[in-house]
């Protein structure tokens, strides 16, 4: 099958949607001739023109709010926030407006907005440009939160996100943009709220998402040589969480390793652990639940320091080995 990068897959999803639905439009900073900070939308201005590839001033609060307002009038905006770290300046619009408008107003309307946000570290961009901020949002009812790990998933999930009538936060890991994978040419959707077992295994369930999926998969490959078999569950959607798949996997393996790039304390890993320990899977656990995450420090700039703050394949392997002791 044809291969696309993760970035191209995202562009294709947006393009297909914008071709078939006049109400879909893209909004954000430098998404036009510049093609977006990571080049994802390069060429879209030429195809769709400046009204549908709507460039904004540096006003995240303003344009995310504008996206929400347009969604209330049944447009389907895709809003790009250049770095997920900047969602702090429009946090109110996401948390108190987009997430709550439907419920608060009695369910008579909806806010079909997709907010795309590059996240993650590894580029040496330091503390304010390297975060994995999903846990800022997972305690907010009303938001759908997606973090795809492959080009295939990115395209299918983004189309589903655009079709969905609810606000969706769509986290794209910067280091994945250049990653290649098979992507069908046609229009397809993937289910929201369904995890995907990226690799089956019998000894340890690894619950993970985003870029970490790939580190876990290579750790799994390596560990197999030592006779340790990982089952890699790619959550794909964090909210709503596919509890069933995690629980069933843990019932099978008896061990749980949680891997995410966000800082450990207060990260989404806690939710995954709690999901398992409040379910019947609790009784199947053979060992403590382990979390392999970023250290609890702002992401440092220097290559060496940054590398040591983030989860690595080696740390994942060590965690898995620890669980088997």
């Amino acid at each position, binding site marked *: 099958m044809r291969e696309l990068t993760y970035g191209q897959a995202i562009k294709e999803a947006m393009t297909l949607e914008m071709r078939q639905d006049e109400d879909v439009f893209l909004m954000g900073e430098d998404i036009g001739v510049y093609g977006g900070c990571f080049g994802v939308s390069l060429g879209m201005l030429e195809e769709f023109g400046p009204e549908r590839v709507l460039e*904004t001033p540096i006003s995240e*609060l303003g344009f995310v709010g504008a996206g929400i307002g*347009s969604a209330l009038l049944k447009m389907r905006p895709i809003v790009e926030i250049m770095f997920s770290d900047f969602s702090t300046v429009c946090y109110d619009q996401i948390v108190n407006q987009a997430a709550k408008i439907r419920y608060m107003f*009695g369910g008579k309307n909806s806010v079909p907005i997709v907010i795309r946000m590059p996240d993650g570290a590894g580029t040496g961009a330091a503390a304010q440009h390297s975060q994995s901020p999903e846990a800022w949002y997972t305690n907010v009812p009303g938001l759908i939160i997606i973090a795809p790990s492959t080009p295939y998933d990115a395209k*299918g999930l983004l189309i589903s996100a655009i079709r969905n009538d609810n606000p969706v936060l769509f986290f794209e890991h910067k280091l994945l943009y250049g990653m290649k994978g098979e992507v069908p040419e046609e229009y397809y959707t993937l289910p*929201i709220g369904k995890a995907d077992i990226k690799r089956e295994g019998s000894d340890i369930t690894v619950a993970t998402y985003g870029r970490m999926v790939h580190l876990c998969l290579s750790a799994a490959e390596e560990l197999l040589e030592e006779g340790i078999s990982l089952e890699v569950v790619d959550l794909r959607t964090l909210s709503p969480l596919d509890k069933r798949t995690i629980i069933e996997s843990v019932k099978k393996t008896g061990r749980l390793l949680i891997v995410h790039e966000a800082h450990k304390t207060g990260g989404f890993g806690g939710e995954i652990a709690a999901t398992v320990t409040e379910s019947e899977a609790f009784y199947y656990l053979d060992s403590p639940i382990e979390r392999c995450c970023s250290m609890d420090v702002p992401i440092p700039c220097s290559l060496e320091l940054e590398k040591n703050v983030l989860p690595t394949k080696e740390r994942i392997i060590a965690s898995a080995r620890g669980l088997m002791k």
Partner: protein
Amino acid sequence: MIENELIIEMYKRMWLIRKFEEKINEYFSRGEIHGTCHLCIGEEATAVGSIFALKKSDYVHGTHRGHGQAIAFGTDVNSMMAEIFGKATGLCKGKGGSMHIADVEKRYLGSNGILGASMPISVGAALALKKKKCEDTVVLCLFGDGSSNQGAFHEAMNLAALWKLPLIFVCVNNLYGMSMSIDRSMSDPDLTKRSLPYGIRSISIDGNDIMGVYETVSEARSYVLGNGPMLIVENTYRHMGHAKMDANRYRTKEEINSWKQKDPIKRAGELLLKISAASEQDLVQYESDAAERIENAVRFALESPVLAIEKIADDVFAGEVVSDA
């Protein structure tokens, strides 16, 4: 003649608001309503004059002090009263309450509990109108003097002007944001200056003069359709405290009384008499009609049931979120 009828209609509507607010105040004071509320007594002409100047196809985004705005818009007082009493028959099924009266489907975009947040959302609504080529439709966004100090104001003004949107910004200047008088909250209390950096026309008017408000907004409506946004500062006063539990320590009795002399309803009544559009008796009748309408609304609210508890969790999301695409 048509104008006479218009003034009569507006006069009636102001009474409907006044009676609504007085009744709410009664129940609140007795602790018989759960929640908080912001009464607009004294400011009725800003709501009615502004909103009567719109066409049926227009959209309105109200403030936290929004009962009057919703009633001016034509929102059903029964459902509003029921909402404030927390009943299932309320506009938002009791989920929103006083601060979240909304009827998005009917183009009333709602009140907002977060000051400033309505401005970018209104920009988005106006953007959608432009995108959908609704050529004779505008958005009216109301906000308070205090709220104009939020950053959202700046971003919304700039975007609205940049995109030349059909958007009327109405600043309901009641001289205070809670206890903070406008000359203590703004380095220059002339609100009309605030739109000038964006090339947005602005005007300051007597917000207690119902016809003046009506005419100004009517003209603004035509103006913004061709020229992009405009800012109208409507100067008025709130007679009551900011919300429940306000000892009014920041204002003098004299000041409050002097503004009570300028009561917009009384003024409109005097106008009607002067132009012989109504008799003293008519006026009394209009008032008591309004009172009766509100009595009915209260009855409706009191008799209505609370939402069935099993429906609490409805309305968080639209449609099925966990899709089997």
